[in-house]
């Protein structure tokens, strides 16, 4: 019997216990348990259709937007069940932010892209504080020096890599605790990718970070923990250095060495 749980003794930010996801009759996730802490970037890897993105989306209830999707099991954020009826989903998504595969800035100015979240969540009582939040977020996202003189330009006019960092700045602006990234570099060139990866290093420790990636070298570069998903189960979860040098499971080995059928 395969041990599908992945728990750590250090204090976890988010915990999933026996999480199952159904799309109608089809079961996409078959009982996944994992702990995510602030100190380690977690990478989810696995072949297409393995459930890694589906599972990622359960962590901030993005699956709620899919009518036929149903989630079972427990997912907690600081010990609080995020699927309980008392959980405010809008608030949850501010605390657990998400960055997507394709950069998706709003068709607004760079400034307004970042200011949007703080405005709707009422985080800034005045213009000066909002300016400060926007600047801090852009600095942390490594974009400030490139855009500080043109904050009123449209966000969609930036390059792909800049747009993705703008999206990260937008996620950071509402002061989240967890950042989920779903293949954030797959549409970027190697230089823009390197900048995002460097940014992930910078952000580590301040936020709990989970990244889904198809690029195993990227998982190896940016994460301290790696989870391998296959056919809706989490086959193996461990230190990234172990997973890529000496995986315990044959399915993990076959996948990371390029022997997956």
């Amino acid at each position, binding site marked *: 019997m395969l041990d599908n749980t992945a728990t750590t003794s250090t204090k976890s930010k988010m915990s999933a216990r026996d999480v199952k996801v159904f799309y109608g009759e089809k079961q996409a996730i078959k009982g996944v348990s994992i702990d995510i802490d602030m100190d380690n970037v977690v990478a989810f890897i696995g072949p297409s259709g393995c459930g890694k993105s589906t599972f990622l989306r359960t962590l901030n209830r993005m699956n709620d937007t899919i009518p036929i999707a149903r989630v079972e099991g427990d997912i907690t954020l600081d010990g609080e069940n995020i699927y309980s009826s008392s959980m405010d989903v809008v608030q949850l998504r501010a605390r657990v932010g998400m960055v997507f595969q394709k950069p998706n800035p709003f068709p607004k100015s760079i400034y307004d892209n970042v200011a949007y979240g703080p405005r709707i969540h009422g985080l800034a009582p005045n213009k000066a504080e909002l300016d400060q939040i926007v600047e801090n977020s852009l600095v942390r996202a490594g974009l400030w020096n490139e855009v500080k003189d043109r904050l009123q330009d449209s966000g969609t006019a930036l390059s792909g890599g800049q747009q993705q960092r703008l999206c990260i700045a937008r996620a950071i602006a509402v002061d989240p605790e967890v950042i989920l990234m779903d293949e954030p570099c797959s549409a970027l060139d190697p230089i823009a990718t390197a900048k995002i990866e460097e940014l992930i290093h910078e952000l580590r420790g301040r936020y709990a970070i989970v990244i889904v990636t198809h690029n195993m070298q990227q998982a190896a570069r940016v994460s301290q923990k790696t989870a391998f998903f296959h056919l809706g189960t989490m086959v193996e979860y461990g230190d990234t250095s172990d997973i890529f040098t000496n*995986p315990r499971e044959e399915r993990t*080995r076959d996948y990371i060495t390029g022997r997956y059928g």
Partner: protein
Amino acid sequence: MNHSLNEHTLKAFDGDLTTLRGLIAEIGGRAEKAVEGAMTALGTNDHDLARQVVEGDKRIDALEEQIDRMVIQTIALRAPMADDLRELVAALKISGVVERIGDYAKNIAKRVLLIDSGQEIDAARLLPAMADATRQLVDDAFTAFARRDADLAVAVCAQDKTVDDFYNSIFRALIAHMIDNPEHVGAGTHLMFIAKNLERIGDHATNVAEMVYFAVMGQSMNERERGDDALAPDGE
């Protein structure tokens, strides 16, 4: 976990690994043959054969370079992971070790050219048996690599003690012989170095076996032994 490996989706990667394994088999085979040739040359006082062994070492050195280049190229181009990465690192280290085995065999062959009264020293009568045991160790170490056989690798390390025991016997016998026959000190010293070379070759075969074990199992043989110790019940 199953230790045998399926084909890569990218077949060219398998081609690289097959070529590399072929080169390791060739360098291992040549090193083994060099040890055998040097010791035969000693036993039969065959200077031509000894010179062939000395000359043949160049090919071993060239193979080492070829293997190193191929490993670096494969790591750069294929970004290997897990078992593949460990095998490539093992291949890189093994090629260095085998080159040393070749050097020891060459050193034996050079000494054959310097002594011709060696076969008259009865104290060295264990040398051929020691050479057989050493050659077998080298052979088994490379068989273990070719078959990804961790058990055989463990056996090689255990067998190394036989070679060490031979060395200690020959060492003591030669010392005693040289004390009684000072006129044989020159030849006796050469024979002692030859025994020492064989002993070192045995150690290097052990190194190869340890790398095979690491490549196959993902942990060092020492870790395994520590693990076993921890599981063993406390003895009195």
